[in-house]
């Protein structure tokens, strides 16, 4: 199987943030340890030296403070790009995101359009301790007024961040921790997405559509590659889970007639449920078989010794593909 060795996700995001900071004087970075340390994942390494402590701000260790003050900064015309240290520490900021950031535009009758980005390192497979391996993107996907992106490559993260700082409403960007430093990833179809908000077809195929996003996109590509002689699978990397690019999904399902959805966030009331329901409503006649979902069951993320049982692996995906196409 071919693989590409490219710039890592962390290095790529660092370069994008640096470039945006250069271009946009109203932008600033705000988060725990993002300045002196460069963030726990070093994604903001070197940026404080380059842009100064006013624009690369080490925040207090309080997530509501981070997002709450960012809302105020956005009201003053700045574009704050916040970092939450780990996905599982997002919850203290949920009130400020859900009841405030997402609603400011409406409350101000459009007079303020806050461009505000919250970057959240996400996902497991890194032997994290409790709360350090979660995937809570479906939580914000349910909130009107918040856009939710889940890039799985540096190239996608670059396009998404450049778009996110311009749209005048909050964007939560989930960055897969286990891809931050990974350089060997399965090759992807080079054709770019139709737009900054569109899904991207990362593998062309005719027998089955697999819709996925985030770190597990790589496992899906590995599984599809391993079965290439038996099944010709098409893989759609959503890149955004809110709003969803249903058009790309439906067009793909129209070609293949089969749909499998794979994600790392837990299955119940998850992103896959929304996709399955939407395809059933709008594309039922396109389907040759039932839509299937492959995602962890509804239980807390386990201690690291058990995470392999929790996460969706290549073998499970392979088995599911074979089951659906045999």
């Amino acid at each position, binding site marked *: 199987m071919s693989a590409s060795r490219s710039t890592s996700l*962390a290095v790529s995001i660092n370069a994008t943030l640096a470039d945006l900071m250069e271009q946009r004087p109203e932008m600033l970075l705000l988060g725990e340890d993002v300045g002196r340390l460069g963030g726990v*994942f070093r994604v903001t390494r070197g940026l404080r030296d380059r842009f100064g402590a006013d624009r690369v701000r080490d925040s207090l260790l309080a997530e509501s403070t981070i997002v709450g003050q960012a809302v105020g900064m956005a009201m003053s015309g700045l574009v704050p790009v916040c970092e939450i240290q780990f996905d599982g520490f997002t919850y203290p900021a949920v009130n400020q995101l859900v009841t405030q950031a997402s609603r400011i535009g409406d409350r101000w009758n459009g007079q303020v359009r806050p461009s505000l980005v919250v970057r959240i390192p996400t996902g497991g497979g890194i032997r994290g301790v409790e709360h350090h391996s979660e995937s809570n993107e479906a939580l914000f996907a349910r909130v009107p007024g918040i856009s939710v992106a889940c890039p799985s490559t540096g190239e996608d993260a670059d396009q998404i961040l450049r778009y996110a700082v311009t749209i005048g409403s909050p964007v939560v960007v989930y960055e897969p921790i286990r891809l931050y*430093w990974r350089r060997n990833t399965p090759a992807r179809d080079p054709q770019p997405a139709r737009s900054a908000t569109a899904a991207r077809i990362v593998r062309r195929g005719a027998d089955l559509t697999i819709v996925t996003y985030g770190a597990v996109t790589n496992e899906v590509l590995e599984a599809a590659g391993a079965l290439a002689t038996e099944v010709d699978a098409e893989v759609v990397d959503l890149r955004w889970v809110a709003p969803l690019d249903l058009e790309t999904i439906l067009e793909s399902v129209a070609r293949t007639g089969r749909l499998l959805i794979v994600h790392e966030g837990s299955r119940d009331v998850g992103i896959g449920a929304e996709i399955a329901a939407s395809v059933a409503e709008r594309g039922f006649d396109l389907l040759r078989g039932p839509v299937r979902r492959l995602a962890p069951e509804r239980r807390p993320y386990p201690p690291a010794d058990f995470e392999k049982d929790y996460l969706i692996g290549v073998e499970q995906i392979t088995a599911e593909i074979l089951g659906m196409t045999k």
Partner: protein
Amino acid sequence: MSEPLDVRVPSFGHGLDEALLIEWVAAVGNRVERGDVVAVVETNKTTTEIVAEHTGRITAHAATAGTVLSSGAVLYQLAAD
């Protein structure tokens, strides 16, 4: 004296499974106590030390400075006391 042990490159946490070997601090033939610095490596996040897991004498290095180490690969051999 027992057979030399294969000592492997540790995991560096949070999905970091590679590091650049900067230098060997403990040369072949050196005796090390558990906890002594054996080598200095640089991960994508930081510079860190690899410390001896056992007390004994280092009998071989399995990599040279400047190479990229992968977690789980053999790093050096040690004849434990």
